């Protein structure tokens, strides 16, 4: 689809949507939202880019290797942060008891492991949404050839 209006609006709005997605992810422990909703916003911005331009250019922004790394890395990062608790001698996935920096509540650097887990999980959700979109779009494209 080559449409000048869609392309210009997409080019202008994609950075703002991505900043908003990162805001929702990074403020997951302070404001409503979090990893799943922020990741969905981030993923849909990439889908908007691919729809406004074309699938090839969109796929170059987030290649198959990068999304593989994000998928496996996000889940492993969660489990590794859980194992920190086991290393510290308390429960799996412990937060305060595992000695994470708690900080002052209602500031950006607080709540121990929660922002770290939210960041990893948010990137994973974004990558999942984008990968699913490209898988379906490419299969659709193949059948028309």
């Amino acid at each position, binding site marked *: 689809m080559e449409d000048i209006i869609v392309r210009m609006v997409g080019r202008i709005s994609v950075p703002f949507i991505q900043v908003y997605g990162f805001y929702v992810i990074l403020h997951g*422990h302070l404001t409503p939202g*979090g990893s799943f909703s922020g990741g969905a916003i981030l993923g849909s911005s990439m889908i908007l880019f691919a729809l406004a331009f074309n699938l090839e250019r969109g796929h170059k922004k987030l290649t198959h290797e990068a999304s593989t790394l994000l*998928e496996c890395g996000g*889940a492993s990062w969660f489990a590794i942060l*859980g194992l920190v608790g086991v290393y510290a001698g308390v429960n799996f996935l412990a937060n305060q008891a595992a000695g994470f920096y708690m900080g002052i509540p209602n500031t950006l650097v607080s709540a121990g492991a*929660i922002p770290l887990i*939210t960041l990893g999980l948010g990137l*994973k959700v974004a990558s999942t949404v984008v990968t699913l979109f490209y898988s379906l779009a490419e299969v659709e494209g193949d059948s028309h050839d």
Partner: protein
Amino acid sequence: MRLVLTLIFLLMISLVLVATVAEMPTFGDIENPTNNEVPQRYIEGAVEETGAVNVIASIIIDYRAFDTLGEATVLFVAIAAAMATLKGH
């Protein structure tokens, strides 16, 4: 014939569902069975125990982090299955 059977079957299912919804406790009622010591503990102790002012984030990523780890695994398996089905032919 098949349409009539389907309609009767759907009507029976919807009757059961509507009866279940009608029996549900009123939203926000103080006498509800869900209003017990568990949400009380979350509301009173979440900020102190987890440091997160968003109580929902503290529940899903601290108190019930194991459940969320399972959820991340479900996402991972779902995308792996989708890739295997769509790309593997």
